[in-house]
């Protein structure tokens, strides 16, 4: 008996193969079709990041197909559907990744301005817009401090509008300014992924405002950027709820830098998150957690096809409790101190088999569990180890 997942994968595979066969003919000035298929194996030892048991998992499937159609020279319709299975990392299933109308309302040699309406992707962080595109991100599992999978469906984009203004000239280089305003629908599964299964009420995102600025000097290998995010959520308790009504405010600030050389590449992001909880635990509860962190990453290209990766990531959820002693004390030892931080060291490699086929492997050595879902109500029974490891490999094809 074939299960629904296998049927869906076969269906998308069939579509991908069909489109792949006709893609070369169908990519014209008006139409473009593209897609990707990736399947991997992941083995986590010491946490429930992917699955609740210790065996090797195939829950590392990513499929997508997109199209872009030029209605007028300056008006374009574009959309992408993805199917994702990452085990416990995020809700398994098919999603409309983006579906937007792109109006290039100002076009000049040096200036371009676009307005995007509909469901857009988050373009503000270094890898936010390609976090689900296996071959276009630096590793299989991204730094969880910034690209926290438990928060993926909310952070990946929004429904609303976005504006992009780009400027390029020989004197100033390339400058990009992006601003977006919208909300993301929060499903019951997504709500419970963050708050835990005891939260029976409804979570809603009230708004999400983000802006970013990137600058690359003329002909430079360097690019630097900064972003800000301001978002509010509300929680409405259900009649037999363990929790009360609550308001959450999330602010996120990042600085990033990227160096792209012929064989060496360096990149990193530094960030701070201000997370305010009003109510929820108790009607009069009020707390601000300021979390901070960074990651630094380098890639080395041995030859045209083989690339190595090393990355170190450092994160704590509360700057007044970096080691988690207060957390452990406040919960009477119920939540161990290592739930206050998560640091990860990664080594990996990727090999380009052809122009459109790549294989990637990586190993993570993790210290801490602050980015294991659900973060609001941690599970110390399953995640009873401070140090845990993960091995992943993924084969990816795109067209």
């Amino acid at each position: 008996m074939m299960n629904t997942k296998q049927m869906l994968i076969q269906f998308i595979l069939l579509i991908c193969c069909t489109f792949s066969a006709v893609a070369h003919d169908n990519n014209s000035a008006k139409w473009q079709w593209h897609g990707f298929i990736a399947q991997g194996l992941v083995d986590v030892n010491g946490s429930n990041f992917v699955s609740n048991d210790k065996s090797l998992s195939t829950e590392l499937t990513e499929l997508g197909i997109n199209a872009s159609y030029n209605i007028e020279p300056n008006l374009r319709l574009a959309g992408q559907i993805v199917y994702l299975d990452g085990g416990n990392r995020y809700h398994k299933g098919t999603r409309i990744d983006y579906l937007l109308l792109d109006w290039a309302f100002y076009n000049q040699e040096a200036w371009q301005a676009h307005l995007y309406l509909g469901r857009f992707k988050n373009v503000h962080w270094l890898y936010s817009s390609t976090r689900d595109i296996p071959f276009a991100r630096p590793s299989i599992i991204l730094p969880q401090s910034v690209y926290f999978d438990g928060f993926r469906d909310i952070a990946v984009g929004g429904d609303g509008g976005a504006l992009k203004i780009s400027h390029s000239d020989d004197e100033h280089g390339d400058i990009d300014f992006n601003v977006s305003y919208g909300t993301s629908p929060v499903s019951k599964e997504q709500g419970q992924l963050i708050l835990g299964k005891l939260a029976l009420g409804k979570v809603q995102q009230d708004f999400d405002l983000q802006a970013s600025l990137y600058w690359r000097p003329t002909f430079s290998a360097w690019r630097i950027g900064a972003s800000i995010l301001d978002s509010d959520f509300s929680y409405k308790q259900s009649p037999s709820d363990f929790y009360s009504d609550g308001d959450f405010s999330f602010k996120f600030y990042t600085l990033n830098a990227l160096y792209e050389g012929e064989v060496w590449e360096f990149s990193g992001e530094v960030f701070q998150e201000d997370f305010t909880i009003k109510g929820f635990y108790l009607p009069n509860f009020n707390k601000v957690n300021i979390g901070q962190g960074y990651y630094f990453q380098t890639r080395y290209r041995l030859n045209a096809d083989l690339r190595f990766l090393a990355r170190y990531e450092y994160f704590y959820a509360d700057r007044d409790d970096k080691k988690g002693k207060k957390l452990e004390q406040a919960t009477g030892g119920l939540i161990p101190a290592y739930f206050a931080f998560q640091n990860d060291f990664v080594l990996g490699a990727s090999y380009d088999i052809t122009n459109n086929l790549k294989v990637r492997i990586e190993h993570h050595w993790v210290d801490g569990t602050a980015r294991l879902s659900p973060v609001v109500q941690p599970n110390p029974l399953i995640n009873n180890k401070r140090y845990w490891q993960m091995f992943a490999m993924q084969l990816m094809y795109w067209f």
Partner: protein
Amino acid sequence: MFIKNILKLSLLLCVFLFSQPAKAIDIIVNSTVKTNTLTASQIRRIYSMRQVLWHEGLPIVVYVLPSKHKLHQQFSKEVLRMFPYQLDRIWNKLTYSGVGVAPIEVDSQQALIKAVMTTPGAIGYAELSNNYNNIHIIKIKG
């Protein structure tokens, strides 16, 4: 004596190899394009999809060869002064996040020349050995 000869021969071979001029890359455009010269940074902007209209207002249609094609690698490094992986990143980001469109990839030089010949506003690159109708070569300034 023998070694000396070998050395001389190697030296000659080196001189011969390195004095062979690398075949020049021509930047080609469809004859509907009125532009005759571009700076290296303008070509870079066009291939980074940061300039999408010709000076006269015609939309630019960008053609490329696969990223591992020798001519694409040469074009990328020598003309654009970028590494092919940087271009792939820019294009992948546009294509898979919906914010724009990437150049149209064709398999061979012949297919690229044909596409530029038949598409108004098209730009591409090739090592031309003949003259073609409907195409003119762009001079690179500076």
